[in-house]
């Protein structure tokens, strides 16, 4: 649902890192449920109409406004409550879920994702950046899940993350994915992933399945790729095989 042209957008609620001072943003892309924006410093922000889509620098609005790419809009969030903290705390997965997590790697058998499995096996891992279809390429979704597993476990960066950042070339993928990587290295993550991680620390199977289902519903195959990547990362961490992993 869209609404008519507006001068100022006033979100219902925001993520904890949303800039409170009213300011102008440029519209970069418009989707059914989201509007992607950049501020004057080139930092991405997102307006969302479904609170499942909360992430870093996101603001929840009632409905998607009628805006066009390159429009300049003003967002004023001074009265909006901060309802989502994108910060990713250090945590440990309940071992109970490891057999379940392992089977998520099989999502790569999905026809659309087979290329990831091939690249991953060949150890040409950095070439997954920007690879595949989608507004966030599936290769990025996979790597994001994989790196999330690593980032989450350690207060200090581990070899995997260091290696990835060393080999990663800015501009080698779409802006949206690039933001995901940057946010992740700042220990920020979107809600669906964070909820899953929280449920995996607990002991409630219904909550775990709900969280997995919520992720699967993300994008055409983004959620599947992310889960497969996360499973690969978790398995690696459990095996303490970090030193042999490189990009």
């Amino acid at each position, binding site marked *: 649902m869209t609404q008519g042209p507006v001068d100022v957008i006033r979100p219902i609620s925001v993520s904890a890192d949303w800039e409170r001072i009213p300011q102008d943003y440029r519209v970069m892309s418009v989707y059914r449920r989201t509007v992607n924006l950049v501020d004057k410093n080139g930092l991405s922000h997102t307006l969302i109409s479904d609170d499942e889509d909360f992430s870093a620098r996101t603001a929840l609005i009632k409905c998607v406004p009628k805006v066009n790419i390159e429009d300049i809009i003003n967002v004023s969030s001074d009265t909006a409550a901060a309802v989502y903290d994108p910060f990713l705390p250090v945590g440990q997965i309940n071992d*109970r*879920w*490891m*057999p*379940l997590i*392992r*089977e998520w790697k*099989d999502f790569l058998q999905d*026809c659309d994702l087979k290329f990831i499995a091939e690249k991953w096996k060949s150890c040409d891992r950095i070439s997954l950046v920007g690879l595949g279809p989608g507004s966030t390429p599936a290769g990025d979704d996979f790597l994001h899940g994989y790196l999330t597993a690593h980032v989450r476990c350690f207060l200090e960066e581990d070899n995997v993350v260091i290696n990835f950042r060393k080999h990663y070339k800015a501009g080698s993928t779409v802006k949206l994915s690039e933001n995901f990587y940057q946010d992740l290295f700042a220990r920020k993550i979107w809600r669906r992933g964070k909820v899953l991680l929280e449920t995996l620390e607990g002991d409630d*199977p219904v909550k*775990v*399945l709900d969280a*997995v*289902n*919520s992720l*699967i*519903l993300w994008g055409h195959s983004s959620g599947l790729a992310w889960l497969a990547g996360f499973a690969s990362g978790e398995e690696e961490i459990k095996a303490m095989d970090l030193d042999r992993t490189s990009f």
Partner: protein
Amino acid sequence: MGVTLVQRLEIIKSSYYDSVTLMLVAKELNKLDGIISSSLNMGTEANYNIMLSGGFDLSGIDATPNDLIIGVIGEDEGVLESAIKTAHAIIANPPWKKAAPAGDYFPKSLDGALAIQKDSNIAVISVAGRYAGDLAQSCLDKGLNVMLFSDNVTLEKEIELKKSASEKGLLVMGPDCGTVIIRGVALGFANACPVGPVGIVAAAGTGLQEVHIQLARRGVGTMHGIGTGGRDVKSEVGGVTALAAVKALLEDDDIKTLLVVGKPPAREVEDKILELIKKFHKPAVLGFIGGQSKEDQPPVYICSELEETAAVGAALAKGEDVDTARSDLRAKEAALKVSAKKIGIRKGWIRGLYSGGTLCYEAQLVLAKNGIETWSNAPFAKEKKLKNSLEPTEHSIIDYGEDEFTQGRLHPMMDLTFRCDRLLVEAKDPEVGVILLDVVLGYGCNPDPAGLIADAVKKASAVSGKRIAFVASVCGVDGDPQDGAKQKKILEDAGIIVCDSNAQAANLAAFLIGR
């Protein structure tokens, strides 16, 4: 001027595909313009025979049971080429598998499932027979009872599994165990019957289903139905599961009446079961069709047919007179004789086309009781085994659910295509006077078996005229997904005589040829 048909065969080496996939691909190919017939089968001997009977020329073909044979018959080479390409495309990426709704995720592995549901105590296994045994062992090792739905598991593996289960205090129900009922909850093929005080131990199966529905029709519910697998009560296996299940149900205070059902066990196994039952003084019925035990030893009653077992069991459960239950059945049988005369006595052979193994076996025994010797692919007397199951002779009762017909193919209770094809073949035989059928309903079964059989019977009647009487029984209840009453009406509207039980149907078939 007739069209000359051409065929194309292609073999995909060392590839396993499940029978549901193969059936669905064949259905898709059959929809293509210019395709007369298609068949996708693993290259077993039985499937060779099935394809030969379907009109395929298999000369020069070299396929093993591990290879897939794609066969198409059509109007020209172009059509065949296109069909083979379509088959490859569908197999590589089956649309029905992609159709699984997103956001409906459930674990795909045993360990994943146990992570989610860690208190599970039973696993249902339905994979190709060659993998089923090892998977069953993994389940046992994780402390799970096993319902082994898969068939084509070797006898050696069955013995090994049951030994392992016995050591762990677990049950292996199967292999080839189609039905299990736990606390009224159906696993596999089962009917929507009430929960009540009866416990059943059966090969499982249609024997279990028939007794389950006959009890329900008499207002009696079932708490547990434990399947053992048909070979369990043979000497080689020694009734390991049957004895453990009988003991468990005898010790269960919720079970007020125990029924033990199936084809005849090895003598020593039957004796052990009877001995065990007698120790507990719980009302029980030993319903082995053609079993050795003959005399009632109250509170243990001996029955030789499935409906009788249920009738006696229901009487015991309701505190009614067992003799009255039996005399009611005899009265029904007498009424069938009168009906047969009204319907019209037929000349020729009886051909039974069955999907249920125990029902097939019972039909042979009922016919034998009426002085009719039968041939079968699953005979009760070894010397009456058909040399070729696709070439029945004289009076023949065929079980299309036997392993020979289900290797890489869907069970006939789900896919009636082959049985319906055979019905047409039998109807063309001028020496056939009666065709006898079972129509099995319930969860897991074809959604409209009566509709498919009715269509086949209409086509058959167009060929045979009134020469053949079609007799069937519906193994189902009104609450089943297919609706028993509705299914019965569909059959009757197609001119099929529908009896209340398999035993009655077999009796009527005998009476219809003047016995």
